[in-house]
């Protein structure tokens, strides 16, 4: 198997896992300020869905204009840096919003979007970007679109379970987020350094 497929798998799994890890952790960020009700989960899931949608459309669009992994990797570096800032950012953001908006549904929805819109939209671009790049290859690629989604979902499965059932019991939330940010940053810098685009054999 060509190296590019291993790079695809690395990106899909690590960002699939990071996105769901962040989704699980966001309830810990929200509940001190907006309570622990089902409303919080409504805000979390709906804002993540919006961010995914934005990422899918943008990722698909950009992949056809700039069908190079390096472009995706640069965007992912930006997303990772944002993730690293979340532990410092969430307290003042949630404090500011919860003091001004009494309705916890609206408050948590706004807080979720301020904190997660940029990084999650960027991270959601991985799958459509990979599919878009492969769609432009003259020869049939080894992965189908469904396979790409499968690999990314396996990553999400691992990220969800590891975070909810293990990591929160061992580390502070802020350290798990920093850890996820470092993993994402390392992966995207590594992909950038590999210069995969020049190694693809049609």
């Amino acid at each position: 198997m060509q190296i590019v497929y291993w790079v695809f798998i690395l990106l899909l799994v690590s960002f699939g896992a990071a996105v769901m890890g962040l989704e699980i952790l966001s309830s810990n960020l929200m509940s001190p300020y907006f309570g622990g009700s089902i409303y919080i989960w409504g805000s979390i899931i709906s804002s993540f869905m919006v961010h995914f949608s934005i990422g899918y459309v943008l990722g698909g669009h950009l992949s056809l204009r700039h069908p190079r992994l390096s472009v995706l990797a640069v965007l992912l570096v930006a997303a990772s840096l944002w993730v690293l800032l979340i532990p410092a950012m969430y307290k003042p953001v949630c404090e500011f919003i919860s003091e001004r908006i009494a309705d916890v549904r609206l408050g948590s929805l706004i807080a979720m979007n301020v904190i997660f819109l940029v990084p999650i939209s960027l991270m959601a671009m991985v799958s459509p970007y990979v599919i878009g790049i492969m769609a432009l290859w003259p020869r049939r690629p080894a992965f189908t679109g469904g396979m790409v989604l499968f690999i990314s979902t396996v990553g999400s499965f691992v990220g969800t379970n590891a975070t909810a059932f293990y990591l929160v019991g061992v580390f502070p939330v802020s350290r798990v987020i920093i850890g996820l940010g470092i993993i994402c940053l390392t992966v995207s810098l590594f992909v950038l350094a590999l210069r995969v685009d020049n190694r693809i054999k049609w």
Partner: protein
Amino acid sequence: MISKPHNDSVLSIAILLIEQLSFLFSLKYSRTSLTKTDAARVWAANSLKGVFMKAGAALGTALLAFFLFLPVRAAADDRILYEGDSIYHHITVRQDGTERCMIFGRRQDLRQTCIDFARPDHPVFEYTAMMFAAFLFRPDASSVCLIGLGGGYVPAVFRRHLPSVRLQTVEVDPLVEKLARRHFAFSVPPGQTLAIDDGRQFLKKSRERYDQIWLDAFNSDYIPAHMTTREFLTLVKERLAEGGIVVQNVFAGNRLYDAQLATARAVFKKVFVFEGRQSGSAVIVAADNPAVEPEGLRKQALAWGGRLGGIDLVAEAEKCRVAPVKGEAPVMTDDFNPANLLLMQKK
């Protein structure tokens, strides 16, 4: 009275499921038998089909029994007055003899709040008796904030036996209030107030100071994690008047208990516990300047005549001691908060 309105719909869904299952089975095996030409094979396939049809029907019947039998059996012993879902819980109100209980969650044996209508101030559960004994750590309290209404047993005791205490109750779930009013004769008397709000949000917005803050917003299988942390207890402490105390209902049998004690100790100078003898309940009392120490509690109880309605204060005072220090238990914070994981880990 609303009694299990979902039975009919469950039945029809179960029947629908069985129909679909057997339809799928028949479709699958009639197709395979069509391709066989040999008569013996057709016969074999048909008998095989019969076996599968029977298995499908048996499976369906078992499913049907599973769906229907459980609620029916529960209803045979006692009466379910309400069963439904709020935005927070699955709530059941059940009448068993003269006892009426509000039950949270699917595990019907746990985390009930009950009132015995024959003896309305009788503590059906040990933890409520221990909480009222904890009152004696600040016996001259004139204002108390209670987080977690349940069936309204605690406000009822305050109303009947401590009428001079201004009680502020906070309940997050509007349905709990509705059910308490409808099925537990709960009402808000003059001198008491009720707010429908998240406990932490309420205290954050409040400008009041309370002599005692009671935390009773906990399930046995789920705990609102944002009300277990050092930051939360610090907020509670800020809302306490000079000499005020926190009284917290918890469960002793899991690792969360040790973490709760460690967290209370991180915020308050003195931490005492009542450990239940008839149940796994425990009550944590935390304060900077309590009126008495656990050794003085019996004397305090006797000074009150030893009883508060149906509660034997002297017997409850016996259960109190200084909380043991467990070195390895973590302090929970907003950042490090494994409360619900610890809750599941038995000691």
